[in-house]
């Protein structure tokens, strides 16, 4: 039984995460192998890969967990693979455009927001909730785009991984474990992708130092906390605003889905604060908004994001725990863990 559960977790968590990492990471590896002069086209392709990494992980996990779904889907939450698929296509197309970050943000969020407003309708929805979904996609997209413009690619991937991990835990607390597992697969994909990009960036920095040892260069502190000859050179493939806005839009839709099917003690504020956690990264880096150099590195920003998400998750878990305890004793063991044979 334990072997079967381990294989199941491998299928729904690690294989989809690996698919996302491959899609997002191969492009960055190819960029690292190219000479600096030939990089422009491959950077653009790698940015498309980064935009697709999280959606691919989600879609793979959904397929493994739930199987293919029809159209129209039999259950409302089965619209998610379609919504995420459309988001991936829009995010990838807009990522490939040579447009200012605010144009990318606007295109992605208006298109995805409008489609979500019309087609992503969960139980107990009403026109206000649908307008709210549109508004939250636009606002969260702006926030995440601003973060992507300011922070290094490692930081964006790490913060996104933390946010999606937080959403996944909230979904499990809301008694929606199957979606929680899928979202955690996305978080794993983003986390591993971030680490891989970090390693490649470090190697790039080392290569640049080794290549030009005689020339005095301006040593600056890169956004990732890496000291390298020139900040831009360390960053092989920066996230596009479109990719970050796509992640934000997917996060908003998943959070609303978790809220709509909530059978736990997770409050709307919990979802909102977790989604907005990267905002705190901007708070500690206000000058970046004006285009100045970052004053804190990836560890500080991701760390702050992690603290916020952890605080929210602990708060939500403590509310669930206190209510469960009041309801009654030993009978209230974790049913999902119990079904998986982990608690007994």
């Amino acid at each position, binding site marked *: 039984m334990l072997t079967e*559960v381990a294989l199941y977790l491998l299928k729904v968590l690690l294989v989809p995460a690996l698919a996302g990492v491959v899609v997002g990471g191969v492009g960055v590896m190819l960029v690292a192998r190219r000479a600096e002069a030939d990089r422009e086209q491959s950077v653009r392709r790698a940015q498309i890969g980064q935009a697709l990494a999280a959606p691919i992980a989600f879609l793979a996990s959904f397929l493994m967990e739930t199987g293919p779904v029809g159209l129209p889907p*039999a259950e409302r939450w089965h619209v998610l693979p379609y919504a995420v698929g459309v988001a991936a296509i829009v995010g990838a197309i807009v990522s490939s455009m040579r447009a200012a970050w605010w144009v990318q943000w606007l295109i992605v969020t208006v298109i995805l927001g409008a489609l979500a407003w019309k087609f992503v309708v969960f139980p107990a929805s009403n026109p206000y909730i649908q307008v709210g979904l549109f508004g939250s996609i636009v606002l969260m997209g702006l926030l995440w785009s601003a973060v992507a413009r300011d922070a290094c690619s490692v930081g964006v991937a790490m913060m996104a991984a933390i946010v999606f991990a937080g959403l996944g835990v909230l979904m499990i607390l809301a008694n929606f474990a199957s979606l929680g597992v899928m979202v955690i697969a996305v978080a794993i994909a983003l986390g591993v992708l971030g680490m891989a990009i970090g390693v490649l960036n470090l190697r790039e920095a080392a290569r640049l130092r080794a290549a030009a040892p005689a020339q005095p260069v301006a040593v600056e502190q890169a956004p990732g906390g890496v000291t390298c000859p020139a900040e831009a050179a360390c960053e092989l493939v920066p996230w596009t605003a479109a990719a970050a806005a796509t992640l934000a839009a997917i996060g908003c839709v998943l959070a609303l889905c978790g809220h709509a099917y909530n059978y736990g003690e997770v409050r709307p504020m919990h979802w909102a604060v977790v989604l907005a956690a990267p905002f705190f990264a901007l708070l500690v880096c206000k000058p970046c908004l004006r285009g100045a150099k970052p004053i804190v590195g990836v560890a500080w920003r991701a760390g702050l994001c992690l603290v916020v998400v952890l605080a929210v998750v602990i708060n939500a878990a403590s509310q669930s725990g206190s209510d469960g305890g009041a309801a009654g004793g030993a009978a209230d063991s974790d049913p999902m863990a119990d079904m998986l044979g982990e608690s007994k």
Partner: protein
Amino acid sequence: MRTLIVASSLIVLPLLAAASRPMWSAPANAAAVLAQPAAAGELTLDPVHSMALFRIQHLEAGQFWGRINALSGSVAWPMDDSAAPMIKAVAELKNIDTGSEKLDNNLKGPTFFNEKEFPTIAFTSTGGTRVTERHWTLTGDLSLHGVTKPVTVDCVVTGVGKGPTGPKVGFECQVTIKRSDFGMTWGIQKPPKALGDEVRLVIGLEADETKAE
């Protein structure tokens, strides 16, 4: 050219979204049966004394039992047992009761019953064949998780007594279904063998005449 594409995307896509029809229609609500008053000669189910028990194998080991309280609906049955009982029974999933509030919430969630979209389980008999005296095999439609399928239910009249409003009739019905037939697949293969596919339902019904309001 690029600006043109961007601008047209901004205008056309939201318009397309707004012009198209909503993807969703309201879920079939079997609770509508409840709204219909019992016809002449029909008895109304007493929700206090009508419940459904469900049994499912857990981790290939024990048989786990849960219940859904307060069934509602109606029964039409001639007391002389000359015809099969015609049963309309509705279980509201908000009344699920396993003895664990957490497990109740888990079962109501989208991983299992998806109570927010499919709030009821309904059975409507369409005919029956006699097995022995006061023992019938009923055929009918079972609506569960948004899927309606024909089922065959073994039904025994457990007794006819007297209640404050007139005669009171009791039934005990049993049926075994495959939940995968109704789109409820969690735990059968994914994760493997966490829960069985077969679910045995034992339904206890008590029906009497409804008081005139």
